[in-house]
């Protein structure tokens, strides 16, 4: 009985942890390049969810098109924040605190705008079927395997999350452009001297980070619903994954996310589910106190 429960919790933990890894890579990519405490990463997340839900129900987009539309919205909103919010502050050498305050202002205003436009209610992702009726967008099947159950979305989460994680890690470490991201991060002056354009790198990084946040937003909309305040807690999980796993390495951030997911899931065995957030924050706190560079991070030189 205890073993069956444990097996289920480990599987749920891996599902949750993979999702956290996705969030960690999204924020980690932006943070390690720009050092901006990009709280507004919540906006592409919500924009993707609302983009998909709205285009499917109002424009009658089929599922695949609605998802692409959602991701497009995520990238557009992510870049708008960068170009209209961060670039002007950077242009006059604003501090990281100033950039954070811009981010904070955007992340306060945006969900409330969503609420004004779409209302406070939870909106599920529904598409028009062949019969011309608005219905469930896809079948979320439940598979039982011994004592363990897992859903279609759960499997998709694991597969997509790690594809994205390894894709981004390969992109950053193996491509020419990826290396210019690393160059900019480690030595901005030198990077500029060898002709790397800060703006171009930022635009690519924010587009990619927002796209990944958008993927995460689509998962939440598909599995649950879209609502105005959906994004902020997930965004914060991304932050925590990065600082918990280790800044400076995307792989560390995603493994940090995975461990956090397992920790959240397994802690519910001993404590109530309501204590899960406390466990997550506690883990972060202790990590920063004992190992400031993060669980898997290298000590700063």
């Amino acid at each position: 009985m205890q073993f069956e429960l444990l097996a289920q919790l480990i599987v749920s933990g891996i599902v949750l942890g993979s999702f956290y890894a996705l969030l960690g890579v999204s924020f980690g990519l932006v943070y390690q390049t720009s050092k901006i405490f990009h709280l507004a990463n919540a906006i592409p997340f919500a924009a993707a969810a609302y983009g998909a839900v709205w285009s499917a129900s109002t424009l009658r987009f089929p599922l695949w098109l609605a998802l692409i539309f959602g991701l497009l919205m995520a990238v557009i909103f992510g870049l708008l924040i960068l170009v209209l919010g961060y670039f002007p502050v950077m242009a006059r050498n604003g501090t990281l605190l100033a950039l954070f305050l811009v981010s904070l202002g955007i992340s306060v205003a945006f969900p409330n705008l969503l609420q004004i436009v779409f209302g406070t209610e939870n909106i599920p992702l529904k598409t028009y079927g062949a019969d011309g009726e608005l219905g469930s967008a896809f079948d979320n099947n439940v598979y039982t395997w011994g004592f363990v159950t897992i859903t279609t979305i759960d499997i998709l989460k694991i597969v997509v999350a790690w594809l994205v994680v390894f894709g981004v890690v390969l992109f950053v470490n193996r491509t020419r452009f990826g290396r210019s991201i690393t160059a900019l991060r480690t030595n901005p002056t030198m990077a500029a001297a060898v002709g790397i354009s800060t703006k171009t790198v930022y635009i690519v990084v924010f587009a990619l980070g927002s796209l990944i946040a958008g993927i995460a937003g689509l998962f939440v909309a598909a599995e649950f619903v879209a609502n105005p305040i959906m994004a902020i807690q997930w965004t914060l999980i991304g932050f925590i994954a990065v600082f918990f796993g280790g800044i400076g390495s995307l792989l560390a951030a995603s493994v940090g996310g995975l461990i956090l997911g397992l920790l959240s899931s397994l802690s519910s065995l001993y404590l109530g589910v309501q204590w899960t957030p406390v466990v997550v924050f506690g883990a972060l706190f202790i990590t920063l106190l004992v190992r400031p560079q993060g669980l898997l991070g290298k000590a700063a030189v």
Partner: protein
Amino acid sequence: MGYYAQIAINILILISLSASLNLLLGYAGRVSMAQAVLFGVGAFTAARVVLPPPDETTSNAVSGIGYGLGWPWWAGVICAIVVTFLAALVISLPAVRLVRGEYLILLTLAFQLGGQQVMTVATGFTGGPFGVAGVPSINIGGVSFSTLKDDGAIRMALLMLVVTIVILAIAYGLGESPFGRLLKTLREHDTLLPALGKNPIRPELLIFGITAGIAGGVGAFFAFSQGAMTPVNFNLDLSIIIISVVVLGGVGSLQGTILGAVFLGLLEPVLRVVLGDDAIPWRAVVYGGALVLMMLLRPAGIIPEGSGIKLFRRKKTPGEVMSSTEALDRLSRVSAASVPGAKPALEVIDLTKAFGGLVAVGGASFSIPTGEITALIGPNGAGKTTIFNMITGSMKPDSGKVLLNGIDITGLSPVKVERDGIARSFQDVRICERITVLDNVMVAVPHQPGENLSSLTFRPLYTRQRERQVRERALECLALFGVADKAYVKAGELSYGDQKLVAIARLLATDCDVLLLDEPTSGVDPANVEGVMQGVSKLRDLGRTVCLVEHSVHFVLQLADRAVFLDQGIVIDQGTVQELIDKQELADLYFGS
């Protein structure tokens, strides 16, 4: 009437909370996202202290009012302050250890969200999602401050006004005190305070604790005025509103904070009249949008720091008209006489440092005689700044020793090294641009009781007297370098050459015997180089031992008594400047011809 009194109470609470955050965000440049949850901790603590104890005759448990200790209201306020102060010390511990602003954002954000969750789960303390009700209102000598009645609500509003004024006075006093000066220095340069011999960790921890303690105390008054509350009262939105008030008003400006709090406090009631129930999301759109626009258009806020209405005018001290020679005269009276060249003040013995495979300093040995000017010269990458870093303790040498007056100081922390008598300047001037020139120099003066909160509170007269002496000393140092007329100007408005002079004045103000200057003339326009050179020679006139890194040949020839020649981390030669010029090969290599 009661409705308006309630709005007034809300605005006053917002002013108080924001003024406390302004201490942290405005003066120390650190942001806390946990202000709301700390406010809540204070409110629930006060409620638990004041609520009546369990009693057979009352049916508290049944009516959901909850139990407490049954202590008087002022005990509730004190407990709230103490509990939140201690809670804040715990959160800030890792952040302060790392001395990184963004960690504090993350930790306080996590604490805020985790705390909200704990509040809804910890039913024994907070009553869970339904909160606590029936908190007794304040009662002083039979006069009730209950907001349920109009006259009580007005009394409560007036009491809250008094509380707010006290908090503003504390915030103002701390900001203007030597302690506040430490914070403002910390805000601009993390590494500057240790180089001035001041420990940065204590003020940072303390200010975080004080900010939280004030929020906790205000929480107690919130509990007494409302009578009932739930964890939702203390969510992230409130933390963000408080940050918005401070930023919109003007970071570091208390008048701006008041204005910002009135604006945001009135926003909801006004929008409610206009929009009805849609007011809540619109309010967030307005202040979130205002925050973004303010950062883009007017980052210093509505009333930028230092530009508000001056309430107290500083008395002008005679130092302002002091001439350079008079300053030299005064300063030499307090300077210890030293015998030039008698024995080495500083000895560097076989110092080495490698970064990975790159040997920056490979066994450098030289000595710096007391009361003379010694120049470290050599091409870029010769290891000069690395040697400075190792002498002052900001970098640990791989091997070798540093002796100060014969005593081994190798590996001591920067703070200890400075207190032993070695101060340094930096290649980038590291002047705090947002505070006055005078404050920049005053912060360097040692032995200031006002940097200590207990002296500030319990020995105010002594503290004030010492502060006058400190100001006078700083003005003398400024006068010596001919920049005393700019004492009350913000340092950021000075030319680079003047900033270099202020940095040297600051170095002198440390009272250290050995002064290390890292490229005092680099980046200074030719017209001002002469001024800097005269300044450095005055340090020698005052009996200080000076060691400087310099590229300007002219400077070295004119000024230095001795020179140490470095190349690729090794001392090639040392001696008096004349001896070195006479050596043909060195002259070719460095002085050219």
